[in-house]
């Protein structure tokens, strides 16, 4: 009974919707911190520079790479929703959702190569 009720969760499109929601939540949590960091420039360039040097740590860089992935996957997932809602239906939505995830991973990998 429960198995049947949760069957839809095996669908790539249910996973895509959940990825969109979780990535949106992650960005909502990150944004205030991002704004506070940039706000350090009010106290002067040196204050912002000190924070940026602190952020050179590998763990912080890894977090930035994850954020680039989350940012890109939320953008592409959002574009897919806008296209579905505003244009004629196209088949292959599962493939498009998979492509969005793959493209996001590629962008995040390119960022990884850049920062390490």
């Amino acid at each position, binding site marked *: 009974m429960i198995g049947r009720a949760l069957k839809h969760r095996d669908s790539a499109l249910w996973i895509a919707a959940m990825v969109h*929601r979780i990535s*949106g*939540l992650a*960005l*909502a949590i990150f*944004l*205030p911190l*991002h*704004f*506070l*960091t*940039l*706000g*350090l*420039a*009010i106290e002067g*360039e*040196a204050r*912002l*520079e000190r924070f*940026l040097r602190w*952020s*050179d740590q590998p763990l912080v860089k890894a977090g930035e790479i994850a954020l*680039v992935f989350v*940012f*890109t996957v939320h*953008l592409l997932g*959002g*574009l897919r*929703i*806008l296209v579905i*809602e505003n244009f004629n239906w196209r088949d292959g939505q599962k493939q498009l959702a998979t492509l969005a995830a793959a493209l996001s991973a590629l*962008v995040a990998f*390119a*960022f990884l190569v*850049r*920062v390490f």
Partner: protein
Amino acid sequence: MNVRLYLWQRATAAVMAPLVMVHIGVIFHATRHGLSAADILSRTRGSVAWTAFYGSFVLAVSIHAAIGVRNVLSEWIPLNERRVDACAVFFGLVLAVLGLRAVAAVVLP
């Protein structure tokens, strides 16, 4: 989500799509030789274009994120509608204030 919030969320998403693409480009450009405050601020200080770009980005994301958080709260947390609305408005205002402060910090000479 009512129709008005739905339209606001989709409209802000449509506005932000090109802004996000440019921002990802800026992230790659800014990190080409490692991030530095001097590099960031030399690009943004006194720039009307970056003020308009990031100012509209902040306003759009504050509305978009507040509506998104409202949806998540109303579906996942057992709170009444009024509290959910209050949380979403508070979150949107915090984002807008912190975001505009951040824009001012990097664009004002």
